[in-house]
């Protein structure tokens, strides 16, 4: 049960709490009313008892003086004769005690016979007899035993300063009870009515309050170690705490996705950097002896024998070594070797001319969109090489059409090439830029490697988006800070 209550949705908890709060309030208000009614009833009763007691005590002086027991009985019995009297204010028993504290007469002679000791018949009379014993005045005394259901009112019967006896009236609290039950019943009815009105309001209110929380909790539950694809959270937007929690959650979600992407990117970049370092090291180690070997062949050809068989062998060696040198050079992409003549619109257009024939040969449409109008402070040869590599790859992959866009903003130049060929599966993406890529179906597999190396050296970035029917490579190169001249 405890867990059930603890695990109950706020959707139900809030209305239940509203209802229980309303019930507690109603109970407290009713209880305070009942206490008040009890007090008032008791005070009314006492006032009534005291005024009636004074009258009776005065009237009893004569009969007591004349020892007229019957007359005394008639007097104390008179309040009981009236048919219309409010019975709730009527004493239960009225006794006249004589000077010795014995019953002189009582309204219940069978229970309290004449001359009997009231305390022996009913010990609760001890307190009132005690309380009135030492008194000479006419002032009434009221006592109520704790835990007793009766009130006792005692009035001394005094004539000319002489104590003749005591009038004792007992009242039950019994008549209070129907009054209390009536009030409690009405209060319960009103509480039920109020709860009936409050229930739909509380329900609506609970849903209004809990709804956003429930949605937020539902959304959070979907987040595991990874953010699932296509997660859609319809969160409540406001400036209160729930709205702020929702907004924070959305922000956190975005950052989580971004972080995962960055981690992936860093992984790829680091691997490529490691491969780059390795290949550059090997290339340097090969380049030095290679240069020496080619020089030796040159020298031998110039100054050595002219034996045709030897020359043929040397030439064979030279071609082989040259091929090795080319391959190593391709691995050793070094931007700084390049001249720094700025990039112009013509450089881009030249590239178009270079690939147009190839595209036409394969029946591929080339859509060209060159937005570069003025010169840019970027190494033209490298940019052209990047664009050429991208275009040649695209033409090889395309089915019907290749689209090229070159444009700039205030900080960067973007070269974007799209083709409509088979797309690159997600799992291949991390290996796309590795040298001698297994993904290259024709060519040596160094095109994208070179493109990547050049881009890195120019502090740029490559974005690849590949969906079925469309693959897009976009290289963004930052423009150096210094103002460019033509």
């Amino acid at each position, binding site marked *: 049960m405890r867990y059930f209550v603890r695990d109950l949705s706020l959707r139900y908890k809030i209305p239940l709490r509203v209802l229980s709060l309303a019930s507690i309030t109603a109970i407290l208000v009713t209880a305070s009313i009942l206490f008040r009614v009890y007090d008032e009833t008791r005070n009314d009763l006492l006032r009534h008892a005291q005024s009636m007691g004074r009258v009776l005590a005065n009237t009893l002086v004569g009969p007591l003086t004349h020892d*007229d*027991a*019957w007359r005394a009985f008639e007097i104390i019995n008179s309040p009981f004769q009236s048919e219309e009297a409010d019975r709730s204010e009527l004493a239960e028993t009225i006794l006249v005690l004589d000077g010795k504290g014995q019953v002189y007469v009582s309204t219940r002679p*069978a229970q309290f*016979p*004449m*001359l009997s000791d009231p305390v022996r018949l009913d010990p609760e009379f001890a307190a009132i007899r005690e309380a009135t014993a030492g008194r000479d005045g006419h002032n009434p005394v009221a006592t109520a035993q704790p835990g007793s259901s009766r009130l006792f009112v005692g009035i001394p019967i005094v004539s000319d300063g002489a104590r003749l006896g005591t009038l004792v009236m007992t009242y039950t609290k019994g008549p209070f009870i129907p009054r209390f039950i009536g009030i409690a019943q009405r209060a319960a009815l009103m509480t039920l009515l109020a709860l009936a009105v409050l229930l739909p309001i509380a329900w609506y209110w609970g849903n209004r309050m809990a709804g956003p929380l429930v949605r937020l909790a539902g959304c959070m539950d979907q987040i595991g170690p990874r953010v699932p694809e296509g997660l859609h959270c319809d969160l409540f937007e406001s400036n209160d705490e729930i709205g702020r929690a929702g907004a924070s959650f959305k922000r956190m979600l975005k950052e989580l996705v971004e972080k995962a992407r960055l981690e992936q990117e860093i992984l790829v970049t680091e691997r490529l950097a490691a491969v780059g370092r390795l290949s550059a090291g090997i290339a340097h180690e090969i380049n030095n002896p290679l240069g020496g070997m080619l020089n030796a062949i040159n020298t031998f050809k110039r100054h050595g024998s002219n034996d045709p068989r030897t020359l043929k062998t040397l030439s064979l060696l030279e071609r082989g070594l040259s091929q090795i040198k080319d391959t190593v050079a391709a691995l050793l992409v070094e931007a700084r070797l390049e001249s720094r003549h700025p990039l112009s619109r013509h450089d881009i257009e030249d590239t178009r001319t270079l690939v147009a024939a190839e595209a036409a040969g394969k029946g591929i449409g080339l859509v060209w969109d060159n937005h570069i109008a003025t010169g840019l402070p970027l190494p033209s040869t490298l940019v052209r090489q990047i664009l050429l590599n991208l275009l040649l790859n695209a033409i090889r992959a395309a089915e019907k059409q290749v689209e090229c866009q070159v444009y700039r903003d205030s900080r960067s130049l973007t070269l974007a090439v799209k083709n409509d060929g088979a797309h690159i599966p997600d799992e291949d993406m991390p290996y796309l830029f590795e040298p001698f890529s297994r993904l290259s179906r024709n060519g040596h597999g160094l095109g994208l490697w070179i493109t990547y190396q050049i881009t890195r050296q120019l502090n740029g970035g490559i974005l690849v988006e590949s969906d079925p029917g469309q693959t897009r490579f976009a290289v963004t190169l930052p423009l150096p800070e210094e103002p460019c001249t033509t």
Partner: protein
Amino acid sequence: MVTPPLTRRHFCATLALSALAPRAFAEAPPLRLGLTPVFLDDQASFLEAWRIYLTERLQRPVVFVQRGSYREIVELLTQDRIEAAWLCGFPFVKNERRLRLLAVPLFQGKPLYRSYLIVPAGDTRTESLLDLRGKVFAYSDPDSNSGFLYTQHALSQVGERSERFFARTFFTWAHRKVVEAVAVELAQGGAVDGYVWETLKRFYPLVTARTRVLEQSPEFGFPPFVTRVSLPEAEFAALRQVLVAMGGDSEGRELLSQLNLDGFVPGERALFDGIAQMAGRVEKRP
């Protein structure tokens, strides 16, 4: 009972009407008739009907005078302040020289009645007066035969005196109230006029049902109507005639039936010999 508010004018008019009603004999001095609780003297409407009946028959105004005790009525009689009274036999024999026997009612066909000793109906153990030793006992009037004298006599027969025998006694000043006192068990026993008890039983059976008649006394002369000795003979005869004739007309019989009586007879002094003897013995008890 709700009575319409009585304005002063209304009240005066009512007074005038009631004064004018017996116009013919308004000048004649009223006949003052003392009543005691030897019968149910607290029925105002019956008393008024009886008063009007007597007024018409006597051809003179009749006024009822009621007092709380027999002694007061006897005093009024002996001081000539009333003409006649319905008294108990005991005060009659005590003040015989100053009173004259007018008429004796007939109860169950005889001018006789008994004293009843009653106890609460719930008390089934008490079998005789002697079982009431140390109890609270109710008398009606110290001048009553059935409600006091007879019990004194009965106790003196066994050598007891009321004040020693009972723990406490009190007077209710009416037979009816003795019955009530015993019914509510204020007293554990009471002495009451047998005629009053029987009449109550007839008209208010609920009260008598709460009491039990323990003993009945021998018969005594019924409480008589008496006049002061100074009452003129003509007036005495007229009053006796009217009372004795009550059984002769329907209106009178109706009133008698409400009194639970059969009529009136002139009666004889000898009827009260029993009471006089008892009174003598009680006076001489040790």
